[in-house]
């Protein structure tokens, strides 16, 4: 799909290609299948690493690993409960499984297995799950708009929402090195490279200030960090100085960094590719209220609704999560407060 700042509807309706196409624009630097390649690289130096999928290797980029190391890959079939149970068993035998499916299936269909067999047991199982939030136009069957809300209350589970190929590549070895269960929202196909333009490295559990700014702070996670950065650049034209704090690890939350950045007197918005119920916005609000910090925060994210099917650029605009809509929101809030 396109991340461009289109607010005007296209001349003719977008076709179904735009429902599930690569997230990258044609003019963007991209990396193909960063998860698959990062996993191959990791597995070449760590014999414990194995991959599993529930009939979605090809659509989660795990096929790159499967094709490079077929003897290290287990096809479990369209059986998500059996997928997570088998991953638990392999971890019990000392292996480091990366298990892939779509985020909707890992969370909605196999929750009990993730909870009891993996999280309660404290196993090093890494779930790598595609189609987070609004990254498919197929409608609610495939759109994991509430996966983080489902999982945030699960004890001991680390939750990661990467921005781009850089995040994914750097996260993979850290997920394996982390001695416990992880859930990562995977971007697949031609994935944009964004964060290498900045002085940035992914650190599990850390939020990073990607750019500073005096007027506005965008606290963002996942692919919304890319849009937040684009919106910040566009707002420069209006002499609006925007900071972007990227929060790729949603649990455990880097509370110290968030509190430090929110203490400064700026307009604050959270940006997430997820319903604003139970995701980043709620996590930030929780910290603020608990610590008695009075700060208004405006959520940018998906509505508490089952989303429409359709082309991704259309839907991103419709639900207010496109780059253009972030900019519009910031301008409107500033004009109100000014």
């Amino acid at each position, binding site marked *: 799909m396109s991340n461009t700042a289109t607010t005007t509807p296209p001349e003719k309706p977008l076709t179904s290609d735009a429902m599930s196409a690569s997230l990258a624009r044609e003019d963007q630097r991209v990396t193909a299948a960063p998860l698959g390649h990062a996993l191959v690289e990791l597995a070449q130096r760590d014999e414990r690493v194995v991959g599993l999928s529930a009939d979605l290797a090809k659509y989660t980029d795990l096929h790159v690993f499967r094709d490079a190391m077929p003897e290290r890959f*287990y096809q*479990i079939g369209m059986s998500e409960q059996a997928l997570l149970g*088998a991953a638990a*068993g*392999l971890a019990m*035998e*000392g292996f480091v499984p990366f298990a892939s499916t779509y985020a909707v299936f890992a969370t909605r269909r196999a929750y009990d297995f993730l909870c*009891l*067999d993996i999280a309660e047991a404290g196993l090093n199982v890494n779930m790598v799950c595609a189609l987070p939030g609004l990254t498919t136009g197929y409608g609610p069957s495939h759109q994991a708009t509430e996966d983080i809300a489902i999982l945030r209350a699960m004890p001991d589970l680390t939750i990661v929402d990467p921005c781009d190929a850089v995040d994914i590549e750097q996260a993979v070895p850290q997920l394996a090195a982390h001695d416990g269960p992880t859930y990562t929202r995977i971007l697949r196909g031609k994935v944009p490279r964004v964060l290498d333009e900045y002085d940035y490295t992914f650190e599990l559990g850390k939020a990073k200030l990607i750019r500073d700014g005096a007027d506005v702070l965008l606290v963002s996670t996942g692919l919304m960090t890319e849009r937040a950065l684009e919106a910040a650049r566009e707002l420069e034209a209006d002499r609006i100085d925007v900071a972007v704090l990227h929060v790729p690890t949603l649990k455990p939350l880097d509370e110290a960094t968030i509190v430090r950045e929110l203490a400064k007197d700026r307009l604050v918005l959270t940006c997430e590719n997820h319903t604003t119920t139970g995701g980043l916005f709620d996590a930030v609000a929780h910290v603020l209220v608990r610590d008695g910090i009075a700060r208004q925060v405006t959520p940018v994210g998906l509505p508490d609704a089952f989303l429409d099917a359709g082309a991704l650029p259309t839907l991103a605009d419709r639900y207010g999560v496109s780059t253009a809509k972030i900019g519009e929101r910031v301008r409107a809030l500033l004009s109100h407060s000014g």
Partner: protein
Amino acid sequence: MTERTTLARPATDDDLDTRVQHIKEAAFRIRRNALVQAEVQGQGYIGQALDVADVLAVLYADQLNLRPDDPEWEGRDRCLLSIGHYALALYAALAEAGVIPEAELQTYACDDSRLPMSAMASYTPGVEISGGSLGHGLTIANGIALGLKRKGNPATVYNILSDGELGEGSTWEAAAVAAHHGLDNLIAVVDFNDQQADGKSTSVLSMEPVGAKFEAFGWAVRRVDGHDLAGLVRAFEELRALPDDRPRCLIADTTLGKGVPFLEAREKLHFMQVAADEWAKAHDQLKETSA
């Protein structure tokens, strides 16, 4: 316990007789200790503990390759209890195998005990998984069986599940996966006591013919009287000795409350009530039937 060093130890009749006598004594102690634990709480899943005692005695006193002083020994056979509420039977079997001290059974389900009401791996040495939410054990057993094969470890994985548990669809996901991956190092043991929470399993949701279902999924199946010790031993050994790569399933038909006639005759309930003045009678009857 008996050390088993080969996958299919041939048993002569004399040898089998001796082993069965040993297993029979172990089964008596498992039942007795199940009663002891249940009496501490005044209740417990006593019907199931009594029915599965013979299967556990065959496994923990004869079949499993274990090191009592090293419950996480890499070479051990892995025995996964899906049905966490059968914990008191498993604890008694682990005591029988020498993994936990017999005296500790007195702490069953007490605060801060290592022996919670529902068996959990994080609490108890020798307990491989946290069961209780049914339909999980066989999915995990698959992963362990795959992992053992990866490592070239010849150990066998056992998963004890119940007939009621077969209603969980994940069991059948796992059954398909095990057959597809040729997990011949996996033995599912179905305790068929025809009892689940809301009544007889065959009336709540009949999964019969269970053996034919597993066979249709690509498993090798034996169905035996779950109280015939020699029959259980032969079935385990035949299953392990099969030359093909099918996963193995042993269905054990059992009687709720087995070994205590007044409990066998009692209305069959998932959670069997035993009155305070009945425990002594239960012990007496168990001694008589085990003599």
